[in-house]
C-alpha cells in the first residue's frame, strides 16, 4: 500500500514537469553563459512558455553534425560563431529561420539577420595597451609598426585571419576597401611585406587569455585582444586601454539545430532574447555589443562607451568578412603558417 502510494507520488511529480516544455540552449560557457542566464534564460522561464536547460560547448561542429546525422538531436538552440554558422547552414546542420517569427529583421545591425542565424552580440578585436607603461597613446594599428616610439614585443593572434587585416589597415587601406584589396594576389603580398617589417617583434597568441596575461607580465607593450576580455581585466583593476579606431568585429548568433523537436519554442526563445530589454541586461553583464538597434538607447552612457556597437566605436571599425575567409581561409592560413615559420 505504502509502495503504491510512493509510486503514485513519483508519477505525479514527473507528470507535473512534463507539462512545461524544456528547451536546451547551448552557449560558450563562462562569463558569457552567466550573463545569458541572467538576461535570457531566467526571464524566459518566468514567462511560463517553457524551461531552459543551459549547456555549454567550445564550438565543436562535430558534435552538432553527429546529432543531425544520427537524428538524435538533444540540443535545440545553440550559440555559434559566424564561420560555423555559414558552413553549418550550407551543410544543412541548422534550420532555416522564419524572420517573421523572430522580430523585425530591419531593426538589427548588418550581418545579424541571416538565413540560419539571428545575431546575439558583436564582439571585437582591438589594439590594447597598458596605459601605465606607455607615455603616448597609440591611435591605430600604425603604432604597431612604430618600433621607435614603442619599443618591445607586440602580441597578435597566430592566424592569417585578423593578422592580414591588421597589416593592411596599418598600411593605410580603408576598412571599406579592405577585402577587395586582400582578394587580389598583390594585396596579399602587400600584407605579408608589411608584416615582414616587424616580424621579429611579434609574439603570437592563440588563446584569448594569453595577450592580457602578457600585458600584465610586461612581455608585450601592446597587443590585439578581445574586447570582452579586456573589459573583464579592467574591472579587476588593470589599467588597460582599448583603441576602437580600426577595430575588427564579428557576430555570434543563435541557430536552431536541424531536426530539433522544440523548433517552435526555440523560435520563441530567440525572439524573446533578442528584444531590446533583454539584450540590455546581457550587455550590462558582459560588454558585448547588442545586435538590436533599439537596445543601445536603453543603456547608460558609461556602459555604452565600452560596447562595440556604440556609434563612436563602430565608426571606423571593420566587420570581418566571414565569406571571404571561408573561400580563401585555408590557402591564406597555409601561406601564413609557412611565412611565420620561416
Amino acid at each position, binding site marked *: 500500500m505504502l509502495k503504491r502510494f510512493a509510486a503514485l507520488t513519483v508519477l505525479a511529480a514527473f507528470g507535473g514537469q512534463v507539462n512545461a516544455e524544456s528547451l536546451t540552449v547551448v552557449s560558450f560557457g563562462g562569463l558569457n553563459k552567466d550573463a545569458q542566464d541572467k538576461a535570457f534564460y531566467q526571464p524566459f522561464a518566468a514567462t511560463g512558455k517553457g524551461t531552459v536547460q543551459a549547456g555549454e560547448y567550445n564550438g*565543436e*561542429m*562535430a558534435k552538432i553534425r553527429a546529432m543531425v546525422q544520427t537524428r538524435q538531436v538533444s540540443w535545440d538552440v545553440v550559440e555559434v560563431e559566424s564561420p560555423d554558422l555559414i*558552413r553549418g547552414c*550550407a*551543410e*544543412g*546542420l541548422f534550420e532555416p529561420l522564419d524572420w517573421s517569427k523572430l522580430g523585425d529583421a530591419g531593426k538589427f545591425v548588418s550581418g545579424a539577420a541571416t538565413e540560419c542565424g539571428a545575431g546575439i552580440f558583436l564582439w571585437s578585436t582591438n589594439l590594447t595597451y597598458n596605459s601605465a607603461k606607455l607615455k603616448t597613446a597609440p591611435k591605430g594599428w600604425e603604432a604597431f609598426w612604430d618600433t621607435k616610439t614603442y619599443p618591445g614585443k607586440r602580441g597578435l593572434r*597566430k592566424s592569417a585571419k585578423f593578422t592580414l587585416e591588421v597589416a593592411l589597415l596599418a598600411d593605410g587601406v580603408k576598412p571599406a576597401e579592405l577585402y577587395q584589396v586582400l582578394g587580389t594576389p598583390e594585396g596579399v603580398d602587400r600584407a605579408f611585406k608589411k608584416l615582414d617589417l616587424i616580424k621579429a617583434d611579434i*609574439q*603570437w597568441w*592563440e588563446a584569448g587569455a594569453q595577450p592580457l596575461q*602578457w600585458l600584465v*607580465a*610586461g*612581455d608585450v607593450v601592446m597587443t590585439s585582444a578581445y574586447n570582452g576580455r579586456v573589459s573583464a581585466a579592467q574591472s579587476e583593476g588593470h589599467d588597460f586601454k582599448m583603441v576602437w579606431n580600426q577595430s575588427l568585429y564579428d557576430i555570434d548568433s543563435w541557430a536552431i539545430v536541424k531536426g530539433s523537436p522544440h523548433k517552435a519554442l526555440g523560435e520563441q526563445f530567440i525572439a524573446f532574447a533578442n528584444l531590446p530589454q533583454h539584450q540590455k541586461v546581457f550587455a550590462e553583464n558582459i560588454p558585448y555589443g547588442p545586435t538590436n538597434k533599439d537596445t543601445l538607447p536603453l543603456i547608460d552612457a558609461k556602459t555604452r562607451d565600452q560596447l562595440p556597437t556604440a556609434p563612436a566605436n563602430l565608426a571606423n571599425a571593420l566587420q570581418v568578412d566571414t565569406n571571404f575567409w571561408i*573561400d*580563401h*581561409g*585555408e*590557402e591564406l*592560413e*597555409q*601561406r601564413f*603558417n*609557412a*611565412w*611565420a*615559420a*620561416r
Partner: protein
Amino acid sequence: MSEVLALESAPSAVQTQRLQRQLQATKRRYIRRSVLLILPLLALLVLGFLTPIGALLSKSVENPEVAETLPETLVQLKNWDGQALPGESAFSALGEDLRSARSNGQLFAFNRRLGYESSHLSSLSGSVLTRLPASGKPVREALLNSVPALADIKTWSTLKHLGQPYTDFYWLAAFDLKKDAGHISAVAPDKALYVDVLKRSLLIAALVTVLCVLLGYPLAYWLSRQPARRANLLLILVLLPFWTSLIVRTASWIVLLQSGGLINNTLIDLGILEKPLQLVFNRTGVLISMTHILLPFLILPLYAVMKGIDSRFERAAISLGAHPFTAFRRVYLPQTYAGVTAGALLVFIMAIGYYITPALLGGPGDQMISYFVAYYTNTTINWGMATALGTQLLIIVLLLYWVYAKVSRPANRPA
C-alpha cells in the same frame, strides 16, 4: 636388404604414425583452446584499435565530394575526350546536380574540395546556380556566356578528374608536392610547409632525446647507487612531476621563463643580466620544458637496468688494473645500453608526436606535425589533410621502431 628393413620397422612405423596423429590432434585442440581464450582480446584489438585507425587513415585517400555531388555530370563526362567543350547534356546535368546538391546541403564540401585544386573554383557552384536558366531552357549557351570558368576546357577536365573515388592529393600535399596534368611538382616556395615541419619535428625530438640522455644518465646512475630507502624517496621526487597534469607543468614553465618571470627577474636582481633573456615562445622554451616533461621516461627504464647490474664486475676490472674510467666505459657502460636505447626510443617516439607543449611554449617556427594535424581536424575540418599528416607521423614512428629493432638486437643483451 631394404625389404628386411621395411619388415622389421613396419609395426613401429604404424605406431609412430598413430602417435604423431594423436600428438597433432592434441596440439590442434590446444591451439583451438588458446585461440578461443585470446579471442575476446583479439576482437577488442581489431574492433577497438585497428579498425578505427584504418578507417581514419583511409580518409587520407578518399575523395567522395565531387562524385557524390555531380553523379549525372560524371556519367555525361564518362566518354568525353577532353579535346573540345562538352555538349548540352553535360551542361544541363551540371545544373541539375548542383540544384539538388544545394537542397541536400552538399555544396559546402564540394566547394571546398574544388577550392583545394584552385581557389577560383570554390565559387563555381555559386556562379552557376545564380545564372542557371529555368528548367527546360538550353543551359549550355546561357552558362558559356555568363560563367567564364565553364568555357575553359581545364575546368571540365578538373571536374572529371575529381570525380574519381580516390586521390593522392592529400598525400602529395603532406610532402609539399602537387600534381598538374599528371606531372608531380613542388608547390610554390611561399606555400611549402610540411617538409620543413617534418624535419623540424625530427630535429626537436632528437635534441630532446639527447638532452634527456645527458641529464638522465648521471641521475639514474646516482640513484642506482643510493641506499634503498633514500633511492625510493628520490624516485618519488622524479615521479612527482610525472603525476602532475601535462598542461599544469607546461603552464608553470611559462610562469618561470617569461620576460617578467621568476628566472629573468632573479637574474636581473642579482645583476647578472641587464635585459631579460627571451626564454619562452621560442625553441629554447620548447626544449627546456619537453626535456623536463619527458625525463622520467628515460630515467625509469634506465634505473631498472642499472639496478640489476652487479657492481662487482666494475670492481673486478679495477682490481685487475683498469683505470676507473676505463672500467666504467668498457664494463659498466655496455651493460646499460639496453636501458639507454629503450628509454631514448620511448622519449623520441613520445617527443615526435608532441602537440600541447610546443603550441603553448613555442613560436610559429617551433610547431611540430601534431600541431597541424590538430589544426586541420579542429579548425578547418579538412580531415583528408589531417589524416595524411597523421599517416606520415605513424609511418615515421613505425620505421624508427623497425630500425631500432634491427640495430639493437645483437648488441643490447647484458652479459
